């Protein structure tokens, strides 16, 4: 019995998992009643983006500083498909996400060969190239003006109301979140976590580590693309802001704020930032970054594991300390990933 308790030290009991899922779905269902609906949809988009980012940062240990390329790249492609084809917005968003994944292949292929700051800088450099293209190729992207008037097509349904659109977008986000969870819990996810902890060890055991990193990078880009495409449809435009480096920075902040490696924490981090920014701008406060930056610093200094990581640590029922039958080795300190690792 004790062994059973110890087996999955990181797991929550089943009732808590289902309870969390129920609460999460309930919150998702009532969100546009509580918040201004476009803001609620923004939370969905940024939430999915941050979860996709945590898939890479928290579960593969790769800090990308160029994820705006995938979010924004997909926003443009989604916008172009929706503007020129008139296809349902689901198809446009899917097309944008596929484009983001395709874009991720060469970027990831080169970037995963390096780690740490070099990985971050390579991804940043590519994202800046995407920004440059979006800025210069104005015949297609609209340059400084961006893509305007992206329609919310869906045959037979009028999505012009932001409230309705929220519920049209929700299934896409839920599918994206389910995919992220599936990846983390799969044997594939185990290997990426092992790569994060010790890459050489995994190589010596016979796994092609770079290929695993590239796969998780591409998966993260795809999910980021889903989020960015939805964001473009939600706002009806895709602008240079979507491919700007500050967008790459924002998703880092959201993920760290929520708690690296917690997956759902990223949702909380994203919701907190979006809500805070909306509240500040509604109140007429101009320097929103000053406040979000301050909140970020406080959380990082006081709660290293982020909002979610800290909350779950406090709430988790502690299993009774098992008797030690043998002089045990110290537990692997790698189990909680940190931003500074490698």
């Amino acid at each position, binding site marked *: 019995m004790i062994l059973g308790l*110890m087996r999955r030290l990181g797991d929550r009991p089943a009732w808590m998992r289902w309870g969390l899922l129920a609460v999460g779905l309930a919150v998702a269902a009532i969100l546009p009643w509580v918040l201004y609906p476009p803001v609620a949809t923004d939370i969905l988009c940024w939430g999915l983006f941050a979860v996709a980012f945590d898939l890479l940062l928290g579960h593969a240990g790769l800090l990308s500083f160029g994820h705006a390329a995938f979010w924004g790249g997909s926003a443009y492609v989604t916008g172009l498909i929706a503007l020129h084809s008139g296809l349902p917005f689901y198809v446009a968003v899917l097309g944008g996400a596929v484009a983001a994944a395709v874009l991720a292949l060469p970027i990831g292929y080169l970037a995963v060969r390096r780690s740490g700051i070099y990985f971050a800088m390579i991804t940043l450099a590519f994202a800046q190239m995407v920004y440059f293209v979006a800025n210069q190729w104005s015949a297609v992207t609209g340059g400084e003006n961006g893509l305007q008037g992206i329609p919310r097509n869906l045959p037979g349904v009028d999505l012009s109301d932001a409230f309705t659109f929220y519920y049209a977008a929700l299934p896409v986000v839920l599918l994206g979140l389910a995919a992220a969870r599936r990846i983390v819990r799969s044997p594939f996810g185990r*290997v990426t976590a092992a790569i994060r902890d010790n890459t050489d060890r995994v*190589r*010596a*055991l*016979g796994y092609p580590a770079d290929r695993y990193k590239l796969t998780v990078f591409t998966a993260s880009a795809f999910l980021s693309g889903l989020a960015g495409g939805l964001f473009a449809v939600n706002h009806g435009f895709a602008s240079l802001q979507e491919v700007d480096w500050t967008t790459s920075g924002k998703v880092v902040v959201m993920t760290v704020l929520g708690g690296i490696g917690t997956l759902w924490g990223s949702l909380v981090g994203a919701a907190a930032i979006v809500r805070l920014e909306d509240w500040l701008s509604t109140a007429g406060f101009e320097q929103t970054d000053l406040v979000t930056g301050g909140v970020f610093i406080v959380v990082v200094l006081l709660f290293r594991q982020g909002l979610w990581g800290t909350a779950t640590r406090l709430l988790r029922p502690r299993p009774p300390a098992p008797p*030690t039958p043998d002089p*045990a080795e110290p*537990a692997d300190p790698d189990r909680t990933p940190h931003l500074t690792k490698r």
Partner: protein
Amino acid sequence: MLEVEGVSARYGEATALDGASLTVGEGEVVTLVGRNGAGKTTLLRCLMGLHRPAAGRIVLAGRDITGLAAHRRARLGLGYVPDDRGIYAGLSVEENLTLPPVAAGSAWPLARVYEAFPVLAARRRFPGGRLSGGEQQMLALARVLRAGARVLLCDEPTEGLAPVAVRQIGEILRGAKEHGVSVLLVEQNLRFATTVADRHYLLAQGRVVEALDNRDVKQREDELLAHLGL
């Protein structure tokens, strides 16, 4: 089975290996002795493909693997047991065992692993992090055998273990040898080395300076111990 010819390796400006050569035959257990910093671990890392040698050739079962990636070497039957043992603390014993992909042909079925390692069978649902040092070492050895290693590269498997655990490791290595597995062993414990190994190489300043058999080691034990600084 394993031939190493003139392998050199550097860390930046520092030379760790300076043309080391050795061979390990099929079913042979060979130890690599030498002081700290002689290049023993670096040599194992070069053989596994975790460190890129600056020069030299590595041949496994007649195939030149010098430029091959580590994961491909693992699938060709090289099994690396690092000095930190590389056990996943959060995974159970069985999950640790079944983690690496299995090489065709030479892999041990799980049942055979448990037969050879009864301690692991008894602890199969235990998290790897709660095993004793000796049990972790056995798990690390069992894991590469289960993955199909035909040549084991073991970095100080007995370091820090109780005498009874050292004896068990010795039995396991002898058992593996009986199954035709070759072993290249980094070892500081000369007494232990002579009980399991067929031959020994003395590594100094990145070169193999002497090849010794068990009788040489026993006769010159004091001199060797003095050289090793033990």
